[in-house]
């Protein structure tokens, strides 16, 4: 099975992230970016739904098993990875069609930030958390990351998410409209794809609106990371 697979379903594309826990590393980010290019260039769909092939995890964030030793060894792939990760977040934020994250399981750390880059989120109600554990991992956010979190969450949850590392359930996220709907696992894909199909908005206008709507985040993306990530910061072996 490839890391990323996608199919066209009427006017939408459904992309499945099939790399186990969908941890972010060079291969994962590259393949996601190239699938997004393919969908944009080779289809006429006007919405994208992204799910996970894993039974309980949508994305668990950065691939720390690879990243921590790579940081320690000053592996040049590390810089390439951070650039690719930023590029993937930016690509999803400004993707020229409506984007829907179908959170089929946990979204943690970079996985949670990635979920916030989508225009809409649906989430399974029976299990799965959205969580930013960076405060306990001692990993600071880049300015644009806080920007996308603030775009998706109301401020009182931003503070709880960032400073407390709170695990948010679908119920709580639905109450504050972070997700559009909490669904049973059986209904999740039906609901997410039905919603995406129903919109049918033109790519050009969606893209133009997003450029303005998320302009503040684009500005934050121009800021170079103020704190470089240091392996000694990360308390995970």
């Amino acid at each position: 099975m490839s890391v990323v697979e996608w199919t066209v379903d009427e006017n939408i594309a459904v992309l499945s992230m099939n790399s186990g826990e969908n941890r972010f590393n060079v291969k994962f980010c590259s393949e996601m970016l190239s699938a997004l290019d393919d969908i944009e260039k080779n289809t006429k769909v006007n919405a994208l739904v992204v799910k996970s092939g894993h039974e309980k995890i949508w994305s668990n964030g950065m691939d720390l098993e690879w990243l921590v030793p790579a940081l320690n060894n000053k592996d040049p792939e590390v810089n390439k990875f951070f650039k690719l990760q930023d590029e993937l977040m930016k690509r999803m934020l400004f993707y020229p069609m409506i984007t829907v994250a179908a959170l089929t399981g946990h979204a943690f750390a970079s996985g949670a930030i990635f979920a916030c880059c989508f225009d809409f989120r649906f989430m399974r109600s029976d299990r799965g958390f959205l969580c930013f554990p960076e405060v306990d991992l001692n990993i600071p956010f880049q300015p644009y990351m806080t920007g996308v979190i603030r775009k998706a969450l109301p401020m009182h949850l931003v503070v709880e998410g960032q400073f407390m590392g709170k695990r948010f359930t679908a119920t709580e996220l639905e109450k504050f409209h972070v997700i559009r709907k909490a669904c049973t696992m059986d209904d999740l894909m039906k609901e997410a794809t039905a919603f995406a199909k129903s919109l049918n908005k033109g790519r050009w206008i969606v893209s133009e609106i997003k450029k303005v709507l998320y302009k503040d985040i684009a500005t934050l993306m121009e800021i170079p990371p103020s704190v470089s990530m240091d392996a000694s910061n990360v308390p995970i072996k």
Partner: protein
Amino acid sequence: MDITGGSWIYCGNVSTLELEIRDRVAIVTMAAGENRLNLGMCAALLNMLDKVERETDALTLVVKSAHERVWCYGFDTDWIKQIQSEGNEASLKEFLVRDLELRRRLLLFPLITVAAINGHVFGGGAILSCCFDFRFMRSDRGFFCIPAVDLGYPVVSGTVALLKQVLPVHMLVDAMLTGRRFTGEEVASARVVKATYTNDILLDKVMEFALHLNKDRGIIGKMKEVQNRHIIHLLDTEDLKTVQAGIFRV
């Protein structure tokens, strides 16, 4: 923003800030009556924040008031009138700079900060409470109110950015342009405060929350730098100049 060389006319009850440490929580009690903000009160609070950061290993800061129904009543209008009548514009300017410095310090404070609002928060006091990461408020009495429109006190850009961060849009306009008094229940339902409790259990509930946080100072400081950078930017580039130029008049 160092103005320590300035002349001080009135220092208020500056010795009336109390510090208590429980586990890794620093509890500061403001015990200067209605805790009105003047040059002395700002300096005392800034000194206390230095003390908590440098001389304790606390990871969370809780600030409460000793007054039975006021957390902080905002700018000390009597003192402002007095120094204005004396033509002492320098002290007024100095106070406004110090007040900005206090907000800046709280917005970047490397500990999680919790305001235990056990009474009214008015004007500069309400704005000060918005510089904390979390707010809890008593439910039985006490208003959250910014009466700037009635007092004829203009606000600066950083204040608006700060209030935009904490208040929902409908409440922001109401607060700024009508000076409406919000009850604890109203600000809690809008999530401006995390929760409200009757005064007899407020502090226990706040401590229950604070004692379990224990997040490292380094990462909290870095996250606040990122989260509040737009407010700090306005404060440093616009607001400080505005008050130093004497454009901002009260």
